[in-house]
């Protein structure tokens, strides 16, 4: 998938004189807080949220990391 912003940034890194960078893609990170009864239901809600709102499956993939609040 074409990622022109990532490609332009990769080229800029080359102009810094830092060699070896063959690929750079730009995405986004979304930080959220969620209340759920247990880990499994939190994962289900997150997956639903990512599939139907936070990511567009045509152009984006997603992964999530879940941390329990103290």
């Amino acid at each position, binding site marked *: *998938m074409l990622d022109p*912003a990532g490609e332009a940034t990769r080229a800029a890194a080359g102009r810094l004189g830092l060699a070896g960078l063959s690929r750079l893609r730009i995405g986004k990170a979304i930080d959220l807080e969620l209340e759920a009864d247990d880990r499994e239901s939190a994962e289900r809600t997150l997956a639903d949220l990512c599939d139907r709102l*936070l990511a567009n499956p*045509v*152009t984006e993939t997603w992964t999530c990391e879940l941390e329990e609040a103290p």
Partner: protein
Amino acid sequence: MTVGIVVFPGSNCDRDMAWAVQGCLGLPTRFLWHGDTELNGVSAVVLPGGFSYGDYLRCGALARFAPLLREVEAFARGGGPVLGVCNGFQVLTEMGLLPGALTRNRDLHFLCEPCDLDVEPGPCRLLAGYGSREQVQFPIAHGEGCWQCDDGTFAALEQTGQLVLRYRSNPNGSRGAVAGVCNATGNVLGLMPHPERACDPLLGGADGRRLLQALVG
């Protein structure tokens, strides 16, 4: 026969559209607020250009959840004519009424210029007034108009003739130089170029008139 123009917070081509549809073509228009829940009997719906919801998250991603768009979706699925221009096209892809997605222009620039397009009307009712391979000129004005989709989708859309508008000089890097796509039943059309800015010869051309006229059949 009234053309409904949906207004989101951040729409900025809604009045241009009304100027073209009502002012140039003499068709009655009505603005429809995104928060309403009724289409008020309009016979066609236009999603105009602009920056609905500030383009937050992704262009068109939040507009999809506006209460009125539930009605627009039902209207479209029932065969009603729906046109999405620029941001409106982005909204239609986010709604799943049109295939693919619109992403940053290949060269990252906001492009604002007249554009030569090839029309291949195929099943598209809104383009029925144009000849096969007719060349028209509409202006473009967008930063995220690079249309993309996967290989299988692209092949299927070519087969069904839904890739109805193509740039002659692909300014934004769209797959297959695609500028506009219609749905399989031909009643929903989305395009990045602005036909409403090509409805008066004083502004450089009137190629867009037949498209907007087709909103009312």
